[in-house]
């Protein structure tokens, strides 16, 4: 039984100079067999394991991770959480995630530092403006909080934004989701890992998957760098490496893997207390609790598995940030990195059964997976446990590329992909 974190445990550990905190999760060796194996120890994979154990009563679960927990896209995103998606199917899924976010720290007994500081999506031209209004209204019809702000209201909320006439990127208005905001991304992985471990999930790090054992069209185990592990069901949640996994299982995916990059500045005093995103110029910015500006950028224009991102994308993003916020011009950037995102043709995820029986797939979140972490894990756990999708992810099948029922969130999702 994992002891709970509380003000009392904080005081008790203060007496021993914080040197005796319990380990947050075990690092066991894999058993020969599990009921369910989750491939990929990022936020989505760990959340899946947590909800499988918590809500579906499955006792024997392993998460296998090639590197370390949250070392992929979970630790590489810009931590933004929002649910203002255009289409009904996406709105339902992301809003479900939002509701889970709102109680997540309490549920996990782990502070994920969820901060509902509001998310602004800027409109720079007449077309943006119409699309913004359409999305605000669509959100409200779906019961998601969403407001339209005119340029003056944007200026009141973000005084440092440059609204002088004739700027390179004039701001004509914005949508605002007040319940949106940011969360500490590492804490999300750690919190879910600790929660899952407490429910008996084995989290096995530094264990690469090299293949699947498939008999008569049914998966029966996973070949790993620590040997064969048998399983009744296998869930694959490997983001940028989903195609590599699908190839091992013998089918193809419609996703393309590209680097999406982000960067942080030197830390400064509080200057921006909300999240500002601009799909049209591929730039978004917020300020971390440490004072760093967290800046997100666009994706490279071609397939790549190098976790870096192209230099000209960095340059375009920073140029746009400097145009919108001229006072950032003399700031220095501390770090820049990339994460490999798997983008679907319709910029919506795949949360689905696959051509291989008992093998399930959670991928295609593209440039916006972090915000969905709790909802994705919740719906995927249901899909694995019941061997059929939940109502929330029923539309997000692999088969939609055959039927043509795409959920086109390109641009409509309030940010360019």
């Amino acid at each position, binding site marked *: 039984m994992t002891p709970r974190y509380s003000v009392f445990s904080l005081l008790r550990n203060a007496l021993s100079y914080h040197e005796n905190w319990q380990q947050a999760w075990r690092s066991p060796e894999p058993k020969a067999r599990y009921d369910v194996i989750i491939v990929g120890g990022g936020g989505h994979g760990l959340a899946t394991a947590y909800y499988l154990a918590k809500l579906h009563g499955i006792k024997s679960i392993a998460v296998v991770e090639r590197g370390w927990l949250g070392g992929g896209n979970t630790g590489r995103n810009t931590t933004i959480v929002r649910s203002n998606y255009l289409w009904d199917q996406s709105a339902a899924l992301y809003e479900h995630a939002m509701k889970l976010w709102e109680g997540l720290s309490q549920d996990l007994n782990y502070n994920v530092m969820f901060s509902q500081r509001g998310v602004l999506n800027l409109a720079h031209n007449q077309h943006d403006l119409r699309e913004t209004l359409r999305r605000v209204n669509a959100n409200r019809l779906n019961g998601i909080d969403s407001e339209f702000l005119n340029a003056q209201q944007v200026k009141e909320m973000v005084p440092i934004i440059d609204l002088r006439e004739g700027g390179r990127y004039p701001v004509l208005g914005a949508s605002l989701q007040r319940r949106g905001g940011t969360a500490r991304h590492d804490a999300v992985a750690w919190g879910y890992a600790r929660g899952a471990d407490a429910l008996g999930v084995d989290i096995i790090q530094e264990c690469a998957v090299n293949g699947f054992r498939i008999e008569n069209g049914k998966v029966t185990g996973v070949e790993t760098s620590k040997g064969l592990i048998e399983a009744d069901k296998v869930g694959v949640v490997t983001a940028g490496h989903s195609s590599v996994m699908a190839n091992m299982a013998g089918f193809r995916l419609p996703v393309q893997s590209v680097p999406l990059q982000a960067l942080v500045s030197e830390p400064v005093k509080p200057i921006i207390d909300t999240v500002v995103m601009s799909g049209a110029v591929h730039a978004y910015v917020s300020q971390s609790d440490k004072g760093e500006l967290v800046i997100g950028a666009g994706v490279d224009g071609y397939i*790549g598995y190098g976790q870096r991102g192209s230099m000209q994308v960095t340059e375009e993003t920073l140029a746009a940030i400097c145009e919108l916020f001229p006072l950032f011009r003399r700031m220095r950037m501390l770090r820049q990195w990339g994460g490999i995102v798997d983008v679907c043709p319709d910029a919506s995820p795949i949360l689905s059964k696959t051509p291989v029986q008992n093998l399930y797939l959670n991928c295609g979140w593209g440039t916006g997976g972090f915000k969905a972490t709790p909802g994705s894990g919740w719906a995927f756990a249901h899909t694995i446990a019941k061997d059929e999708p939940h109502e929330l992810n029923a539309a997000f099948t692999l088969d939609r590329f055959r039927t043509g029922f795409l959920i086109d969130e390109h641009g409509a999702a309030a940010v360019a992909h």
Partner: protein
Amino acid sequence: MLQITCPHCGARAESEFHNGGEAHIERPKDPAALTDAEWAEFVFLRDNPKGLLLERWNHTQGCRRWFNVARDTVTYEILAVYPMGSQPPALDPRRYV
């Protein structure tokens, strides 16, 4: 940033080019005979290899002509540039796991 050698203009910076996705995808010869699954294959399913990728590029800011490139998607090394309509040279597939 990549340096791509356009077969017509020589070595130029990546920003002059536009990527055109996977190479060697043929349009269906008899579109009316295709099933939905075959259409999905043609329209949506793509190789997304971690290793050797054959792809098309267009020199948008230069001669505006198309050509094929064989590139390693991990090291970003360009292994061959060859004209449209020709078969790719024999290369190690370089599959990384």
